[in-house]
């Protein structure tokens, strides 16, 4: 690409450049001032290619060592461009600005922080150059972008107006992004950061399912892959959609089979039953099936009390964690509870019967209004009996299931000879340093034990 008219170097190698205070000419936006960046898709005739406008002082007119407001407004045009791409393009402003030697750019939206170095300013770098670089790289990276014009604002009043306008756009964009569906993306992401202690665990990250630790959303996954393509977070091609309700994809099954050494071959993203997602050890919360009320409870890490099962989070986490699939249990991130596909195969919120009060308050907006009073907390129910009573009193949707269950039972009693129930296969992986992996497989077994103790034999 032609950058002969730019007085400093331009290239990927400058991406990690941090301008230290000692080398800095001016501080732009950041904690000492304010600013924002915005990218909009515009009609072809409204954008003049490579036009750069600077409202307020350019670098050379700034006082050395001072902080200034700073806004970046990028307008792009192209026949094939859609408004939905604005967010994706906007995040690249960060990358492309950083390609400019002597120019630093951190973060996004209305919390950006930029700096320009003394060295760059003394070589004659101006905002006009930075704008030209942005325009050219945008056109090069995205064929669909035909024209780019850039406006920088360093004048305080104009900057304030711009930030207000930008915030309105962000808000509109966010409400759309919150609704981003698994169906609308081509790839999912996988994370194996936890495999050191959960060797068969892979985290499948999709727009409707953030990682179990809650830390990595689909957007975060995409950002991570870009930063470190060979790192612990990687792309998962979706493959075929095998079950839209349970959330089973051939691409995810394949990756789990590979990364778990063949232990896990099927995964349902949106169910606690049959093939639930594996659970690492970092999950923020556990969704657990309570057969006595045919409902699902959720307990989060910070809750110190006991669940209606009589055990606290820590005990339950010890049982379901470590990278195994446990029918009826799944480790989840709190953000997943806000997903439109939250345990949809099991009935979603209609199946949730118990959760700690603190957690309920945190996700209250995600709970359908008519169910908010019907979900018990530790204040309403502390054991299975009081839970059952509470649900009956409030006429929770699961109560209807009890009636159906009764009918089924009666039918079953009439003709019991043909009934065959396949018992789930339970597999437990144990690992200890120097011992290697031990796999214990119980097939078609009915086991009841208060406690299983495995001791190492004496040497």
């Amino acid at each position, binding site marked *: 690409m032609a950058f002969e008219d730019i007085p400093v*170097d331009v290239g990927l*190698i*400058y*991406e*990690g*450049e*941090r301008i*230290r*205070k*000692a080398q800095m000419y001016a501080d732009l936006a950041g*904690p000492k001032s304010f600013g924002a960046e915005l990218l909009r898709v515009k009609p072809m005739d409204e954008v003049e290619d490579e036009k750069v406008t600077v409202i307020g002082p350019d670098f050379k007119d700034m006082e050395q060592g001072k902080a200034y407001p700073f806004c970046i407004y990028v307008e792009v045009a192209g026949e094939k461009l859609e408004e939905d791409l604005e*967010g994706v393009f906007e*995040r690249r402003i*960060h990358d492309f600005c950083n390609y400019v*030697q002597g120019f630093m750019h*951190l*973060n*996004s*939206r209305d*919390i950006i*922080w930029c700096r320009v170095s003394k*060295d760059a300013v003394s070589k004659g770098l101006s905002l006009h150059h930075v704008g030209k670089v942005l325009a050219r790289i945008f056109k090069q990276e995205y064929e669909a972008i035909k024209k780019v014009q850039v406006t920088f604002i360093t004048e305080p009043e104009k900057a304030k107006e711009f930030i207000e306008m930008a915030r309105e756009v*962000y808000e509109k*964009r*966010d409400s759309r*992004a*919150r609704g*981003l569906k698994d169906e609308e993306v081509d790839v999912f992401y996988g*994370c194996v*950061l*936890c495999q050191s202690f959960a060797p068969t665990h892979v985290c499948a990250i999709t727009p409707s399912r953030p*990682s179990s*630790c*809650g*830390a*990595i*959303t689909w*957007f*975060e996954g995409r*950002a*991570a892959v870009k*930063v*470190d393509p060979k790192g*612990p977070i990687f792309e998962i091609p979706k493959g075929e959609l095998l079950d839209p309700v349970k959330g089973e994809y051939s691409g995810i099954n394949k990756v789990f089979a590979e990364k778990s050494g063949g232990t896990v071959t099927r995964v349902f993203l949106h169910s606690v039953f049959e093939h639930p997602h594996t659970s*690492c*050890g*970092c*999950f923020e919360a556990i969704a657990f099936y309570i057969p006595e009320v045919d409902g699902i409870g959720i307990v989060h*890490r910070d809750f110190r009390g006991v669940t209606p099962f009589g055990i606290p989070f820590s005990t339950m986490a010890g049982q379901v964690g470590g990278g195994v699939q446990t029918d009826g249990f799944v480790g989840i991130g709190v953000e997943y509870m806000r997903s439109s596909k939250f345990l949809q195969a099991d009935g979603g919120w209609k199946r949730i019967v118990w959760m700690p009060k603190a957690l309920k308050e945190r996700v209250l907006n995600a709970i359908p209004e008519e169910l908010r009073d019907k979900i018990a907390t530790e204040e309403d129910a502390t054991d299975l009996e009081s839970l059952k009573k509470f649900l009956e009193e409030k006429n929770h949707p699961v109560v209807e299931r009890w009636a159906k269950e009764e009918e089924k039972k009666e039918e079953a009693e009439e003709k019991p000879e043909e009934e065959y129930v396949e018992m789930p296969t339970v597999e437990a992986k144990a690992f200890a340093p120097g011992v290697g992996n031990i796999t214990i497989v119980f097939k078609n077994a009915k086991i009841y034990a208060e406690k299983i103790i495995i001791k190492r034999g004496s040497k």
Partner: protein
Amino acid sequence: MIIAVSGKGGVGKTLVSSLLIKILAEKTQFDILAIDADPDSNLPEALGMEVKTTIGDIREKLGEIREELSPGQSWRSALEYEAMKALVEGDRFDLIAMGRPEGPGCYCAVNHVLREIIDTFAKNYDVVVIDTEAGLEHLSRRTTQDVDIMLIVTDCSKRGINTAKRIKELSEELDIKFKEVYIVINRAKEGLVEKIKEYAKSIGLEVIGIIPEDEIVAQYDLEGKPLIELPKDSKALKAVEEIYKKLDLEKKIEEEEDLMLYAGQRSHVTHAHVHGFAHRRVI
């Protein structure tokens, strides 16, 4: 170039770190980053700097940061921003404090990202001096990459020496790669020095410097004055200058720069680049 200074609490590793930084700042043009990786140390005070936020504080705050983010925004960039804010910037060197190690809960993903952020920071400097606790936790967590030179500071006490031994063993167990490891004896008492040297030799370590008892250091400590302001005739400063010479740091850092230039094959790179960061990413 990454130099780590370790030792039992109270043996004087902060003295060694801060004086090394002082010498580097005064004698060279290198860009210097100090990393305080010992929550119990007083490196910031020794350097005359004030830390408002540590990396540990940022980790604790991440929950809040995340809740405020919109769906399309990445907390990685938010962390980068916060980490840059936590950097204390001086005229000749910068400082970042790691803070306390984490509490309960999972920090795999966060630590991984923080590690990348600190590594990116570190690459912007010619030399990084890490004041690290004896458990080497930050090193084992790979908060920093491989260390070029490790200085283990000890006084003449049995406990100081045992800790030195433990640090050496730990670094082997944890598979941290050091190019060079040395012992520095602080508050040396005549008659005991030879014994410690012998002991160091028996565990396969060389003593690279001996810092005598220095009344001025004690006085500065008492008055809470930054050690970096120690006068030229301070015995401790002179001793660390000797260590600096023996380590041949200036030459080693320059050689590293040359090697990187070569690896980067940036023929048009100027001297300004050498003291920037540009070529360092290429490797």
